[in-house]
């Protein structure tokens, strides 16, 4: 093994250069914030993993949007397997952790429910990830021409950056509001279905019960008549 180490070094170097110079060639660079909505069938558990560097911040927010009691078990584990968060039968939650290097695992557990499937929304917000915050500087390679206001350009760029940050925050809040609204809408639609269903059942039961009452009473008298004669 020892004598074979010298060969990979230049190859490794080439490979690293290759992956740095050609963005996209070595795989996609995922964004810092992501949200997903998925269906969790009854009696199942699904886990997701997020690789994190040291001293970054991971914020996870989840909500149950649809399905019977609108509750789910949530479990967050550190890369060593230590449980950081364990919540049972909650309908929404938000957790922030200061991260160590490694893969964080979080799981949604619907095993307590036998018939109802849940629709779960979760959002991951990653901060202080380091290398990925320089994407805007990378754009310098692709632009053509220069802007005329060289002195004031830095100020303009700074205000543009702050606008971008605020718009991102608006976008996040919108995502959250959308999840809340979806949940309320699902509740209402299930209410609507329930009202329809039970009204029909009620009507049928009422009619059947009154008919049974009348005919039972009648049948009592029929027998007595027959026994007399």
């Amino acid at each position, binding site marked *: 093994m020892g004598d074979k180490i010298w060969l990979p070094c230049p190859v490794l170097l080439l490979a690293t250069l290759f992956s740095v110079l050609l963005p996209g060639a070595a795989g*996609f660079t995922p964004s810092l914030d992501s949200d*997903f909505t998925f269906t969790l069938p009854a009696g199942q558990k699904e886990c997701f993993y997020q690789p994190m560097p040291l001293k970054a911040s991971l914020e996870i927010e989840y909500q149950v949007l649809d399905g019977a009691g609108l509750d789910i078990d949530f479990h967050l584990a550190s890369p060593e397997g230590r449980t950081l968060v364990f919540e049972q039968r909650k309908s929404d939650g938000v957790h922030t952790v200061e991260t160590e290097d490694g893969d964080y695992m979080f799981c949604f557990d619907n095993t307590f429910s036998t018939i109802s499937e849940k629709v779960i929304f979760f959002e991951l917000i990653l901060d202080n990830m380091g290398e990925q915050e320089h994407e805007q500087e990378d*754009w310098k390679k692709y632009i*053509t021409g220069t802007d005329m206001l060289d002195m004031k350009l830095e100020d303009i*760029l700074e205000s543009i950056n702050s606008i971008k940050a605020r*718009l991102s925050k608006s976008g996040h809040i919108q995502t959250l509001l959308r999840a809340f609204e979806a949940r309320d809408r699902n509740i209402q639609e299930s209410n*609507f279905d329930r009202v329809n269903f039970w009204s029909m059942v009620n009507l049928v039961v*009422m009619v059947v019960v*009154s008919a049974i009452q009348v005919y039972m*009473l009648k049948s009592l008298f029929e027998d007595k008549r027959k026994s007399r004669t």
Partner: protein
Amino acid sequence: MGRPALLLLALCAACARGLYFHIGETEKRCFIEEIPDETMVIGNYRTQMWDKQKEVFLPSTPGLGMHVEVKDPEGKVVLSRQYGSEGRFTFTSHTPGDHQICLHSNSTRMALFAGGRLRVHLDIQVGEHANNYPEIAAKDKLTELQLRARQLLDQVEQIQKEQDYQRYREERFRLTSESTNQRVLWWSIAQTVILILTGIWQMRHLKSFFEAKKLV
């Protein structure tokens, strides 16, 4: 570990940062994206296979692909394609609502996969996050200021589209609530009326029955 693993690890140094999950052979994983109309969605995924002998995840799985299926809010299939072990799928929504993105592996060689797990790295970008700004800068020959302004404009446009869609959804929500409310009211009134009428009918019918049987 050895030489090949180190090499591939270096290659993947820039791309090991995304969310991933494990999927079984025949398992299907679906994600729902609620989006306004005319919004582009780009999904990127990368798969790794668990190697039982080496107890490690292999960086790539030649011959193993993923089938991606996208359904629009009405249930109609918008995209249904097979991709390799690493792929990128794009679609644009034409109706606002819940679009369902489903992934499942198309492993034909069951023996290779037997009892194994597949690790899938997934990233879904919606709307202006799906735009590739370096590409736009190169195509339209923009200066830095123009590029930044373009990005802000795209961001604002996306937020505005979401707001319009939110307004449409809220209207639907309000209609359903009001309809439910009305139905509850009318049903309670109808129930009371039916109960009274049934009671009257019962009494009348029994009375005429007893009279016919000469009991009263």
